[in-house]
C-alpha cells in the first residue's frame, strides 16, 4: 500500500521544520513525504532541502491552496499512490493523527475521502469566532444539500483513496477553488466521505491564509458553488 503525505507550503519558514519533524517521528503509518511549495518567498524551501525531503516547487504562485491540491492529485495519480493525505505546513495538524484519517480508508473500501474535523469532539484549537461561524453556517448548508454530515468544511487534513485521486487528477476544474467546493464536487461524483474527530493545534508561527479578504471571498465563492450544485440537480 503506497501512501503519500503532502505538506502544502507557502512562506511557512517558522513552522515547516516542526511539521516535517512531526511526520518523521510518527511511526503510526508508513508514508512518503512530499512538500509542495506554492512559490514561497521566504527560506522555507531551503529548510525542506536541508531536511532531505522530496519537494515540488510551483514556478508561480497559484493564489490559494487549491493549486497545491491540484498538483498533489496529479503527482499522486502519476506515481500510482493508493492513498494521498493532505496536511498544511503550519504545524497545526498532528502527524500522530494521520492514522485516524488513513485508517477508515484501509478498513472500508467503500469510503473514498476522510476529513479530519476539529468540530466533532470540539477539542483543541477551534479557530477564530468569525471563522467558526462561517464554517458552521456552510457546513450546515452543504450537509442540507448533500444530505451527508459535514462538520469542518475548510479542514486541510484530508485523506483520499485511489478512486478519489483518479477522479480529481482527471476532473479538477476551475469551479474548485476551495476544500468546500471540492467536497461538493466529490459528493456529486458519488464519492463516499467520512468526517473523523481530530485535534488541531494553534498556529505556532507565520501568517494564516484566513484574512479579511478571504473572509469576504470565502462565503461568496461558496454560495455561488452551492447555487451551481443546486442548478445541476434540477
Amino acid at each position: 500500500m503506497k501512501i503519500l503525505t503532502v505538506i502544502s507550503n507557502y512562506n511557512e519558514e517558522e513552522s515547516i521544520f516542526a511539521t516535517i519533524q512531526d511526520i518523521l517521528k510518527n511511526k503510526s503509518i508508513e508514508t512518503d513525504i512530499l512538500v509542495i511549495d506554492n512559490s514561497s518567498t521566504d527560506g522555507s524551501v531551503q529548510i525542506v532541502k536541508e531536511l532531505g525531503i522530496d519537494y515540488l516547487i510551483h514556478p508561480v504562485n497559484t493564489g490559494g491552496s487549491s493549486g497545491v491540491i491540484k498538483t498533489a492529485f496529479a503527482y499522486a495519480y502519476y506515481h500510482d499512490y493508493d492513498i494521498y493525505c493532505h496536511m498544511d505546513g503550519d504545524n497545526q495538524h498532528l502527524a500522530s493523527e494521520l492514522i485516524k484519517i488513513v485508517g477508515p480508508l484501509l478498513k472500508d473500501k467503500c469510503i473514498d475521502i476522510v476529513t479530519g474535523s476539529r468540530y466533532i469532539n470540539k477539542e483543541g484549537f477551534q479557530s477564530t469566532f468569525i471563522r467558526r461561524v462561517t464554517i458552521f453556517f456552510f457546513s450546515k448548508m452543504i450537509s442540507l444539500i448533500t444530505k451527508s454530515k459535514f462538520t469542518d468544511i475548510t479542514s486541510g487534513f484530508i485523506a483520499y483513496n485511489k478512486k478519489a485521486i483518479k477522479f480529481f487528477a482527471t476532473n479538477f476544474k476551475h469551479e474548485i477553488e476551495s476544500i468546500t467546493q471540492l467536497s461538493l464536487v466529490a459528493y456529486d461524483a458519488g464519492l463516499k466521505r467520512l468526517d473523523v474527530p481530530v485535534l488541531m493545534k494553534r498556529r505556532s508561527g507565520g501568517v494564516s491564509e484566513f484574512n479579511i479578504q478571504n473572509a469576504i471571498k470565502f462565503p461568496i465563492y461558496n454560495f455561488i458553488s452551492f447555487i451551481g450544485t443546486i442548478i445541476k440537480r434540477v
Partner: protein
Amino acid sequence: MSLNIKLLVLVFGVLFFFVLLFSLRNKSMKPFYSALWMAITLFMLSLVVFEKAYKSIATLLGIEDASFLVIVSLISFLLLYVLHLSVKISEMSDRIQELISFVSILENKLRKSSEIKKK
C-alpha cells in the same frame, strides 16, 4: 442624428477600422476576435450610412428615439463580450494551473534523475 454626432461616429469608426487592420497585420489578435471587432466597426459605420433604416427599426419596435436602440444594442453586445471573456479567462486559468502542476512534477523528476546520475 446631428451632424456632429455623425462626424464623431464616422471618425471613431474609421480609426477603429485602422487599428483593427494594424492588429491584423501584426497578428496580435485571433481571427475570431478580429472578425468580431470588424463587425462592430461596420456596425458603427452603418449608423451613419443607414441612419434611416435604424430609425425605421426603432419605430417598428416602438422606440421613439433611435439612439436608445443603438445604445442598448451596444451595451448588450459589450456585456455579452465581457461574459465570453470571463469564460475564456477561467479556461485559461485552468490550463495555466495544469501547466504549473506539470512543470513542477517534471522539474522534480529531472532533479531526481540528475541526483541519481551524480551518485
